[in-house]
C-alpha cells in the first residue's frame, strides 16, 4: 500500500493556521467540535481515570499485602474491586482509544474532521457526568456498587446495597457516549476517505477502529438492555433474574456476556491497529500480510459473538453448550495467532531501532501473547472448572488489558506525541517509564498465575496463609507499577511545554497521511482532500 500526497497541500495547511476560529479559555474546550481538541479531551480524561482506577487498585493491593483485614472492611473491598473494574474498562481504556480515533482517523484518511462534529462534542462531554455519578456513590450512605464490575444478579438486585440506580444511570450514559462515538467513526470512515483510498488501502489502524465501532454499535444496546432489566428488577418489581417470579439469574449472565465478550475485543482490536502501525515504522519494513490482518480482525470480531458462554462454564450449562463454546473459543486462537505471526514476520529481516513506541509495541506482542496463551488454556472447559474465578483469570485478563491494551496506548501516545505537541518527548525519561513499567507489571501480574493455580479465588479481601508470599510480591509490583505511571505524566507535560522541535515526520520509517502535515498538526487539516493512489 503506497500513499502519495500532493505536497502542496502541506503548504495550504500551514497557511490555513491563521483562520482557526477557535475560542479561548474554557469555552474552547466546552464548545469545541474540532476532532483534535476532542481527541485531546478524551486522552486526558482517560489518563485521569487511569490514575483514579489505579489509586483504587493500590488500596486493594495494600489490603492484600498481608493476610488478615488490615485497612478496609470486606464490603468496602468489594466496592473497590467493582469501581476499579468499571473505571478501567469504561473510563480509561475505551475513552483512550476514542481519543486516538478522534485525533488520528481524520488525518489518516485525509478528512478535515469527524463526520458528526457536534455529536462528537456531546459524546465526550457526557462522560465526566457518568463517572461523577459513579464515583459520587462512594460518598453516599449506601456506598459504591459492591457487586463486581460484572454485576451478577441477584447480588446486584435484591441483595444490592442501594447503589444499583446510580450504577445503572452511570452505565447508561457511558453506553450512549460509546454508541455516539462509534457511529461517528463508522460514518467518517465510510464517507470521508480521500479520493483514491479504497477500503483495502486504508491503514490497518483505520480498519481496526472501523470494525471495533461496529462491535460497539452491536453490543452497547445489549448492555443498556441488561442494566435496564436490572433496574426494573431492583426497583419496579419485575422478575427477569428472579426464579421466584419465573425469571433466571443465569439469563443475566448470558445477556451480560453477550455484551461482555465483544467488549473485550472492543478493548483489544484498536490495540492491534496501533501496534500494526508502529512495528513497520521501526522495522522500516512494510506490514507483513496486510490483507490477512484485515481478515483476521474481522474474523475475531465475528467469532466474538459466539463465544460468550465460556465465561459461564460453571453455571450448569448442558454438555452440548459447553462443547460448542469450548470449540468456538479455541477457534479464536487461529486469527489471533495469524496476527502475532504477521507482526513477527514484519520484524523479521527488518532494520530495527528501539525508540520508546517500538519498545512498548514489542512488549505488547510478547506480553499480549502470554495473555492469549493463558486464554487458550482457559478455553479448555474441564480445566476451566479449576481456573474459573481464581487469580489465574485475573492474571490472564490483566496481561491482555494492561500489557496489551494499555501498553499499546502508551506506544501510540509516544509515537504521535510529536505530531500532537510539535515537540519530541524526552527519550531517556520515556525509557525509564518503559523499563520501570515492564519490570513492575510482570512482578505484579505474573505471580497471579501461580496464586490462581494454587487455588486463590478472586475478589476476596483476605486469604489463607499459603498465598501470603506471592501476594506480598504482587503488591510490591503493584505499587511500583502505579508510581511508574507518574513518569509518563512528567514526559507528557515536559513534551507539551517544550523540547526539541519535531519535524513533520519524526520517524523515518513511518507511513501515512498524518505525517504529511506539519508538527504540531495545524488546527484544521486536509480542508482540501489529498489524493491517494
Amino acid at each position: 500500500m503506497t500513499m502519495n500526497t500532493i505536497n502542496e497541500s502541506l503548504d495550504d495547511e500551514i497557511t490555513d493556521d491563521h483562520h482557526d476560529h477557535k475560542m479561548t479559555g474554557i469555552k474552547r474546550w466546552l464548545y469545541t467540535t474540532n476532532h483534535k481538541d476532542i481527541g485531546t479531551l478524551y486522552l486526558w480524561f482517560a489518563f485521569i481515570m487511569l490514575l483514579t482506577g489505579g489509586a483504587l487498585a493500590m488500596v486493594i493491593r495494600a489490603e492484600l499485602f498481608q493476610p488478615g483485614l488490615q485497612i478496609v472492611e470486606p464490603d468496602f473491598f468489594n466496592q473497590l474491586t467493582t469501581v476499579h473494574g468499571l473505571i478501567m474498562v469504561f473510563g480509561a481504556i475505551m475513552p483512550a482509544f476514542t481519543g486516538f480515533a478522534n485525533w488520528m482517523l481524520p488525518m489518516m484518511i485525509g478528512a478535515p474532521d469527524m463526520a458528526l462534529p457536534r455529536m462528537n462534542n456531546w459524546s465526550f462531554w457526557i462522560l465526566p457526568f457518568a463517572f461523577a455519578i459513579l464515583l459520587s456513590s462512594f460518598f453516599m450512605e449506601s456506598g459504591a456498587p459492591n457487586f463486581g464490575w460484572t454485576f451478577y444478579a441477584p447480588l446486584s438486585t435484591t441483595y444490592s446495597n442501594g447503589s444499583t440506580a446510580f450504577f445503572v444511570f452511570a452505565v447508561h450514559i457511558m453506553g450512549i457516549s460509546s454508541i455516539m462515538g462509534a457511529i461517528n467513526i463508522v460514518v467518517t470512515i465510510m464517507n470521508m476517505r480521500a479520493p483514491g483510498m479504497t477500503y483495502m488501502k486504508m491503514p490497518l489502524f483505520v480498519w481496526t477502529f472501523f470494525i471495533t465501532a461496529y462491535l460497539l454499535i452491536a453490543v452497547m444496546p445489549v448492555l443498556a438492555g441488561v442494566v435496564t432489566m436490572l433496574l426494573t428488577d431492583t426497583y419496579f418489581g419485575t422478575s427477569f433474574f428472579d426464579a421466584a417470579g419465573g425469571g433466571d439469574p443465569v439469563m443475566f449472565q448470558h445477556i451480560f456476556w453477550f455484551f461482555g465478550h465483544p467488549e473485550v475485543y472492543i478493548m483489544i482490536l484498536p490495540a492491534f491497529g496501533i501496534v500494526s502501525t508502529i512495528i513497520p515504522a521501526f522495522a522500516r519494513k512494510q506490514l507483513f500480510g496486510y490483507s490477512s490482518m484485515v481478515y483476521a480482525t474481522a474474523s475475531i470480531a465475528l467469532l466474538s459473538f459466539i463465544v460468550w458462554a465460556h465465561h459461564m462454564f460453571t453455571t450448569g450449562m448442558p454438555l452440548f453448550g459447553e462443547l460448542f463454546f469450548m470449540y468456538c473459543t479455541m477457534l479464536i486462537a487461529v486469527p489471533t495467532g495469524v496476527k502475532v505471526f504477521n507482526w513477527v514476520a514484519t520484524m523479521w529481516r527488518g532494520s530495527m531501532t528501539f525508540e520508546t513506541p517500538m519498545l512498548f509495541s514489542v512488549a505488547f506482542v510478547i506480553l499480549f501473547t502470554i495473555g492469549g496463551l493463558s486464554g487458550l488454556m482457559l478455553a479448555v472447559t474441564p480445566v476451566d472448572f479449576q481456573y474459573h474465578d481464581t487469580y489465574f483469570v485475573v492474571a490472564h485478563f490483566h496481561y491482555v488489558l494492561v500489557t496489551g491494551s494499555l501498553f499499546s496506548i502508551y506506544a501510540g501516545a509516544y509515537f504521535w506525541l510529536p505530531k500532537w505537541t510539535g515537540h519530541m518527548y524526552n527519550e531517556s525519561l520515556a525509557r525509564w517509564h518503559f523499563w520501570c513499567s515492564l519490570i513492575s507489571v510482570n512482578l505484579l501480574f505474573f505471580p497471579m498465575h501461580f496464586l490462581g493455580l494454587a487455588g486463590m479465588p478472586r475478589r476476596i479481601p483476605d486469604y489463607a496463609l499459603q498465598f501470603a508470599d506471592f501476594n506480598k510480591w504482587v503488591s510490591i509490583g503493584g505499587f511500583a507499577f502505579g508510581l511508574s505511571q507518574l513518569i509518563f505524566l512528567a514526559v507528557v507535560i515536559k513534551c507539551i511545554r517544550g523540547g526539541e522541535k519535531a519535524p513533520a515526520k519524526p520517524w523515518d520509517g513511518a507511513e501515512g497521511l498524518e505525517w504529511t502535515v506539519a508538527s504540531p498538526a495545524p488546527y484544521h487539516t486536509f480542508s482540501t482532500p489529498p489524493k491517494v493512489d
Partner: protein
Amino acid sequence: MSRGNQTRLMGAWLFLCYFYSNLVYADSQLNLTKGVTAVSREVYDLHMLSLYICIAIGVIVFSAMFWSMIFHRKSKGAKAADFHESTKVEILWTAIPIIILIAMAVPATSTLINMENNDNSDVTIQITGSQWKWHYKYFDEDIEYYSVLSTPRKEYENQNGSFDGNGALKGENYLLEVDKPLVIPANKKVRFLITSDDVIHSWWVPAFAVKQDANPGFINEAWTNVDVPGTYRGQCAELCGKDHGFMPIVVDVKTPEDYDTWLKEQRVLTAQAADAEKASLSSSMSKEELMKLGEIIYVAHCSACHQPTGLGLPPTFPALKGSVVATQGAITEHLSFVLNGKGMMPPFGKQLSLKEIAAVVTYERNAWGNNTGDLVQSSDVKAAREE
C-alpha cells in the same frame, strides 16, 4: 561474545532453570493440584498438556522475535528486506494451529463428557449456599446441618497483632476451616445437587476438580469419586457479597466403614437433639444461661451482619442496639424476624434449635444496653413458629 560472557550467560541460564525447577517441583502450591480423583488427575493432565503446548508456541514465537531483534537491528547494519506478503505462509500458520487445537480438543471432550455424567451415584447430597455458609443435606438419611467458618474473628481482624510472616498468630488452616465439615465416603460415586437460598455462590474443592455454581431457584449437578480418605479444603468461588472470602468448604473423606459409623453417630445425635428440643419446651432457662448461650449463637450466626457490637453496618445491615425491633417491639415480632427472615435477612427457623433461638433473642433484647429484661423460652419460640 567473549568466552567470559558466554560462561556468565550459561551460569545465569542454569540458575534460572534451577530456580524454575524448584518452583515447579519443590512446592506443589505453584501448580494446579493433581487432586484425589480420577477426574481431577485427567484435568491435571489436560492442564499440563495445554501448558506445554503454550510454552512450546511461546518459545518458538519469542525466539523468532528475539532473533530478529538481536540480529536485524539497524545499529548492526541490517538492511530491511522487501517481502511483505505470502499466501502460502499465511495458509501454513492458519492450518498448523488448527491441528494443534484439534489435538487439545479431543482429550478435553472426552474428559468433559465423563465429568458431566451424573448417573449411577451411590450417595446424593444436597448442597445449599447462603450468605455466608453452606448447608448439607443427605438424601435418604435424616441428616442435615450447616457448615460455617470456624476461624476466630480475632484472627482475621488481627486482634492478636498483625501477620508476622510466619503465620504464628493465625491458625494453620486460617480461613479454610469450618465447624462441621461435609463427610463423604471414599471410593463411592457421590452426587451433589447444588443450589442457593439467596445470591449465586460456587462450591469448589480443587482436589476433586469440582466447581459448580449454586444458583437460587435452580439445581445444578456435580459428582466426585475420591480414592484417598483425608480432609480436603476449598472456598466459595463466586462473589456473593460481603463475606464471600469467609465461607470455606471442608470435606472429610472417610473409608466406607468409617462413613457408616459416622452415619450411625449422626442418627443418634439427631434423635438426642429432638429429645432435647422436647425437653426444653417443658423447662425454662435462667437469664444467665440464656445470655451465655445467646452470645455464642449471636457471634456465630448474627455478628457477620449485625456486628459483635450490635451496631450493624447501616444502611445494608441495620443496628440492633437500641433498635425498635429489639427494644420496643413485641417479642413475637422479633421472633418472627429471626424465624422467617425478611428481605436480605435469612430465616433461622430451621437452622437453629428452639432453645438457641430463645437464647439469641433474649441476648439481643438485653445486650449492649438494650436491657429490656425480657426473657424468651423455647416454648415461646414454638408458639411463634406455629403462628
